[in-house]
C-alpha cells in the first residue's frame, strides 16, 4: 500500500513538475467552457442547467485525456525507468493502479476546476442541482474510462505520439458508437435497430447522457467501471509480458 501511495504521489506531482499540467489545465478549461458559450449557445438558451456544458465533454475528453494518458507508460518505457520501477518491490498491478489513479486524480482536478460554470448558473437562475451533481459524477467516471483506454494504449508503445493516436482512435470509436448522428447513419443503412442499440451501449456518450439527465443507473456505473477495469487488466498483462 505504501508503495502504491508513493507511486501515486510521484506521478501526480510529476504533472506539475513540467509545464504540461498548466498547459493542459488551461486548454481544458478554455475548451470546456468556451464550447458551450460560443458554440452551444449556453447563454442564449436561457436555461439554468449544465446540459450544454456536459454535452461537449466527451469531445473535449477525446483529445485532452489521451494527452494526459500518453505519458503514463510510454515515457517510462522510452527513458528506461520502468526497469527501475519493476526491480523495486512493487507488483505490476500496484504500479498500474497507482499510475492510473494519479492520472485520474489529475483529470478530476481539471473537472472540478470547471465549477465556475455551475456557480454562474446558480447566480443567474435557479438550477436543478440533481442533474448538475450527477453530471459531474458521470464526467469523472467517464474520464476514468477514457484514461483506462489511454493507459492501455500507452503501455503498448514507447512512443508517446503513437500512444496518443491509438488512444484518440479508440476513444473516438467509443464516442461515435453512441453519437446520435452516427446512429442515424447506421439506421439509414438499414441495420436492425437492435444492433444499433446494442452498439450504442458500448459508447461513453450513451451512458454519460443519462447521468447528465440526472439518472444514476447501475448499468451506467457498471459500464464505466467495467470498461476501466478491463483496460487496466489488459494493461497489466501487456506489462507483465
Amino acid at each position, binding site marked *: 500500500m505504501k508503495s502504491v*501511495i*508513493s507511486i501515486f504521489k510521484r506521478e501526480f506531482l510529476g504533472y506539475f*513538475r513540467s509545464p504540461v499540467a498548466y498547459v493542459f489545465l488551461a486548454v481544458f478549461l478554455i475548451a470546456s467552457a468556451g464550447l458551450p458559450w460560443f458554440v452551444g449557445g449556453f447563454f442564449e438558451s436561457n436555461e439554468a442547467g449544465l446540459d450544454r456544458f456536459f454535452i461537449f465533454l466527451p469531445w473535449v475528453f477525446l483529445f485532452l485525456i489521451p494527452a494526459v494518458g500518453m505519458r503514463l507508460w510510454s515515457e517510462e518505457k522510452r527513458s*528506461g525507468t520502468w526497469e527501475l520501477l519493476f*526491480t523495486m*518491490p*512493487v507488483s505490476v498491478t500496484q504500479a498500474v493502479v497507482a499510475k492510473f489513479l494519479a492520472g485520474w486524480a489529475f483529470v478530476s482536478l481539471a473537472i472540478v476546476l470547471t465549477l465556475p460554470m455551475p456557480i454562474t448558473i446558480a447566480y443567474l437562475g435557479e438550477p436543478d442541482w440533481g442533474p448538475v451533481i450527477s453530471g459531474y459524477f458521470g464526467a469523472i467516471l467517464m474520464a476514468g474510462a477514457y484514461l483506462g483506454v489511454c493507459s492501455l494504449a500507452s503501455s503498448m508503445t514507447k512512443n508517446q505520439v503513437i500512444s496518443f493516436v491509438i488512444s484518440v482512435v479508440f476513444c473516438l470509436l467509443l464516442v461515435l458508437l453512441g453519437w446520435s448522428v452516427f446512429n442515424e447513419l447506421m439506421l439509414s443503412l438499414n441495420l436492425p435497430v437492435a444492433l444499433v442499440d446494442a452498439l450504442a451501449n458500448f459508447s461513453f456518450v450513451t451512458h454519460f447522457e443519462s447521468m447528465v439527465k440526472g439518472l444514476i443507473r447501475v448499468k451506467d456505473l457498471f459500464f464505466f467501471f467495467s470498461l476501466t477495469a478491463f483496460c487496466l487488466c489488459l494493461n497489466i498483462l501487456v506489462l507483465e509480458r
Partner: protein
Amino acid sequence: MIKSQNLVKEYGSFRAVDKVSFELRKGDILGFLGPNGAGKSTTMKMITGFLPPTSGTASVGGHDIQSHPIEAKRLLGYLPESGPLYQEMTVLEFLKFAGEIRGMDTGARDKALTRVMEICHLENVRHQTIETLSKGFRQRVGMAQAVLHDPSYLVMDEPTDGLDPNQKQEVRKLIASMASDKAIILSTHILEEVEAMCNRVIIIARGRVLVDETPADLLKRHPRHNAVRLVLQSGGPDAVRETLDRIPQVGKVEALGNGWLIHPKHGEVIKPRVWEAARAGNWPVESLENAPLRLEEVFRELTLAPDAKPEKTKPSQKKSREKVEAA
C-alpha cells in the same frame, strides 16, 4: 546468496542467454565480463526480476524471483545500464521516492538519505533536477538509489560507464568499501576494474559462461603466464640462448630487443632457475622480471576465438574442465 540456475532467454529463435548458472555468497564481488551483446545485461535483468526468463530460475536470498518477486526485490539494489532516472525530479525528491517505494519509514529514510548523499557526494546537487546533472552525477544518483536501503545484494550494470577517470576511481572505492557484507555483481568492459575489485570473474560470450574463476586463475590462462623477461647489458656472452634452452623447465625462448622472453614449458615458476643460470654464467644482468600480463589479452583470446571453446569450470566442485562443444 544469489543463485542462477540454467537461466535461458530466447528472443524468437535467438538465444541471448544460454543456460547461465552460478552462485554468489556474501563477501563475493563478481565481475561479469563479456563483449557487447554477450548477454550480460539480459542475465542481470533476469536476476533482478525485470525480465522473465524463458527457462531456468534465479533466486535472491532464498526467494525465487519468479514466484516471490517482492520478497526477493526487497533484498536487492539494482543499478540498470546507463542509469535511467526520473529526469524531472530533483535528486532529493527522487531518493525520497526510492526510499518510500521500498517501504522505509521517514526516520530511517532520512538517515539513509544523509548517508548515501554523503558517500555518493550528492549534497551539493540535492535540489537540482536530475536532467540538469552531468553524466557522472546521474550515475551517482543511480548508485545512491541502489544502496539507499543498504541491500544485501547489489547488481550493477556497468557502474563506471561514462565516468571520467577520477569518478571511476571513486566508484570503485565505493563498491570495494561495501563488499564485506554484501554479494555484488557488476558488469564492465574494463578489465582492470575486475582485477582491482572482484574476487570472481565470469566471462560470458554468445550467452554462455566461458569462464567462472578468480581473476588470478584467469591470468593463468595467459599465454605468457609465469614467463620472464631477461635483459642483459650489451656485451653479454653468446651462449645465453643455449644455456637457457638447457634448463629443463624452460620452453620457448624469444629474442626481444637486447633481452629474452622466456616461457615456461608447463606454466611453472621459472624465475629462480633463470636467475641461477645467470649467476652461474656470470651474465651482466640488467633486469629480470615477470612478463607483464594483461587480463585484456586473456579476454580477447577467450571471446574472439571463432570456435571459442565454451568451457565451464566449477573450481569448487570439479577440477577437471568439461569441454562443451560450441553450438
